[in-house]
């Protein structure tokens, strides 16, 4: 993971079946006045579309800030233009996330982009909810808890882009009392999948099936993350 001044960027190779040929990777960038360098983006030959979480800015605001008409700003970005866009957000505290841009049919307004840009049905609603979570005030739960920390949100996004298929149900996103974040999936048969992200003691994967078998895994072990992916896709059972 390239480390930038004051922030980090992770470039994640995306499986071909999940994205169009125009997008070969996505980046998750945590900025507080920083932006990924040209080197950090060099592994991507695709286009990028920005979404800013935790700033109160939506896609339309993003477009307005860039000063480019929606019909133009998605297409044909040079890397220089991408960097310029990032620099235009240099004073915005929060999470700047670049998601892969894909072919958009029809009108290319902000709403269309949001729906079609990723071809991942789970992403738009998930992004909206993550944005809401990142804006939670302290004591959001009346028990004096802090809002989810940026690391927990960034890790959740990174993980979701690894494990989600296009038809995977979006997770429930539950903030925890110590700044962590819990991702939850529950099925009609009573099985539960929970993933805890962030710098918290119980960070990890937990799966309990319909008959009470359970398994715990680590987010740091690729084999465990693969098992989570398989379980969410219905390809792997616990027993």
């Amino acid at each position: 993971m390239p480390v930038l001044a004051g922030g980090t960027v992770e470039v994640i190779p995306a499986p071909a079946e999940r994205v169009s040929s125009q997008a070969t990777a996505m980046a998750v960038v945590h900025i507080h006045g920083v932006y990924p360098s040209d080197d950090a983006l060099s592994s991507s030959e695709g286009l990028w579309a920005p979404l800013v979480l935790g700033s109160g800015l939506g896609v339309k605001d993003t477009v307005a800030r860039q000063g480019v008409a929606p019909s133009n700003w998605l297409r044909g970005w040079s890397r220089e233009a991408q960097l310029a866009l990032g620099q235009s957000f240099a004073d915005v505290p929060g999470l700047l996330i670049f998601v892969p841009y894909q072919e958009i049919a029809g009108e290319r307004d902000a709403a269309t982009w949001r729906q079609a840009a990723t071809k991942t049905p789970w992403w738009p609603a998930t992004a909206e909810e993550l944005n809401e979570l990142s804006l939670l005030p302290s004591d959001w739960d009346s028990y004096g808890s802090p809002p989810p920390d940026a690391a927990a949100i960034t890790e959740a996004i990174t993980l979701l882009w690894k494990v989600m298929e296009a038809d995977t149900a979006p997770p429930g996103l539950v903030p925890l009392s110590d700044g962590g974040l819990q991702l939850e999936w529950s099925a009609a048969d009573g099985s539960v999948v929970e993933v805890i992200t962030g710098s918290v003691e119980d960070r990890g994967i937990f799966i309990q099936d319909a008959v009470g078998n359970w398994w715990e895994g680590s987010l740091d072990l690729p084999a465990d993350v693969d098992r989570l992916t398989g379980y969410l896709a219905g390809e792997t059972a616990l027993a």
Partner: protein
Amino acid sequence: MEVPTGDVPPATRLYRRIPPRWLHHDIENNCVRVSSAAFRDRDTSIYLEDALAVLGRQPSEVLDDYPDDYSLVSLTAEEVSSAEQAVQRSPDIKDEMAEDDVGWAHGEFCGPRSKTTRQWLREHARWVVAPPNACPDAAAGTV
């Protein structure tokens, strides 16, 4: 009125306040259930049924000072103890507290909290004040 002290009888209901962010939308069943996150803290804040009764307060009144989208669930002291949790009374005492303030009925249950324990607690929690569209398998709506 004298609020109970000492050991908590096993049949006593323990009421846990649930902020809306701890509700998880079960997409497959199209209903809302409590997340295990509600039972993650090692010291879990609750209100005790017997103390509320002495104060003349209904369980739902522990939500009086909170927004309308808060919910309430209950477990019994016996259930919580069977999950290796210790139940204790710990009145939430503030300045100029009314005699019948629900804070007098405050308590906690404490203990090691594995992920399976949290799931067990979630599965055994019953709605007292249920959110709209609560999943029926959490005994929706009634004490």
